[in-house]
């Protein structure tokens, strides 16, 4: 149940058995069914989730009622709405399960306790926030300057095994392009590979 999390942590910091135990006493194991919500727009976010197995997505609904996917969270990813968690304001995000998903949830309170009981996690979370900052910068840049084709290649690099797990329209929604454009780009890439 904690395999992925400990693997993820150990890629960044060293932890002892005692620190593993602290994690086991603070993370909430929670299994989601397909399409079940972790967070719904209008609610205050209580948890940040680490995905052990399965796939979550976070999305917003725009003025026209269209779903815009902000993030996919497969195994080994964190997902949540930090803004809502920290401020206590209602979230603009929805987070739900694309597949049956096993998560480990961390409340704000448990997060603070974790840092207090095992300060080495300060480093772990600093590295996470650093990476997340870089990811956001990249996504911002991609949206402003990259062509649809380049955005798609970026997506495949970022999420190597997601393209087979989600419907095409979800990928198009993540990239901010129409499903028709995505289909054209994929055709072009396949043809380029062949020649």
């Amino acid at each position, binding site marked *: *149940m904690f395999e992925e999390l400990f693997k993820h942590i150990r890629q960044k910091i060293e932890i002892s058995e005692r620190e593993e135990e602290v994690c*086991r*006493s*603070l*993370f*909430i*194991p*929670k*299994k*989601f*069914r397909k399409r*079940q*919500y*972790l*967070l*719904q*727009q*209008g*609610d205050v976010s209580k948890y940040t989730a680490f995905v052990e197995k399965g796939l979550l997505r976070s999305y917003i609904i725009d003025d026209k009622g269209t779903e815009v996917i902000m993030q996919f969270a497969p195994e080994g990813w964190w997902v949540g709405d930090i803004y809502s968690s920290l401020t206590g304001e209602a979230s603009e995000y929805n987070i739900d399960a694309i597949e049956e998903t*096993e998560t480990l*949830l961390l*409340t704000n309170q*448990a997060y603070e306790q974790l840092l207090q009981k095992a300060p080495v996690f300060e480093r772990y979370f600093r590295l996470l926030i650093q990476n997340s900052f870089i990811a956001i910068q990249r996504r911002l840049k991609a949206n402003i300057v990259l062509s649809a084709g380049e955005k798609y290649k970026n997506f495949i690099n970022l999420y190597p095994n997601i393209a087979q797990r989600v419907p095409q329209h979800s990928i198009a929604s993540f990239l901010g392009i129409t499903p028709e454009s995505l289909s054209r780009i994929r055709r072009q890439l396949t043809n380029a590979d062949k020649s």
Partner: protein
Amino acid sequence: MATQRTIAIIGACSNNGKLASKKLAIKKSRLLLLDENTENLLMLKKEIEEDRGDADIEIMECFKEAGWEADIIVLASDWQAEKEIVTTIKPFITGKTVISFTSDNKCLLPYSKVIALKEENKDWPDEMEAMLKNSF
């Protein structure tokens, strides 16, 4: 909007289990009912559904799976059976709210939020409902 909460009721066909199930079968909750006696479970499910059309009720067999999925766990089996169940589900209910009719579970489940109710107190279903409102 409020995200649906999942409540596992273990020992749903005991007196306490039935009272708890009926009280908690409200909109925005998914009930997972568990008991040794499947026939009684089916009867209870039907009874609640007839009373409340919008209830989301499911019968489950595996304690571990139910505990893993639930946000709230009601322990209403008899005490001998319960000890064993509690040991099985313990790793899956860290940080979750547990409704119990014995305070012994507080020692057995140090990482869960155990609320011990007294069944002699006939108002316990209302008390439970009020406490869950605050904790969720």
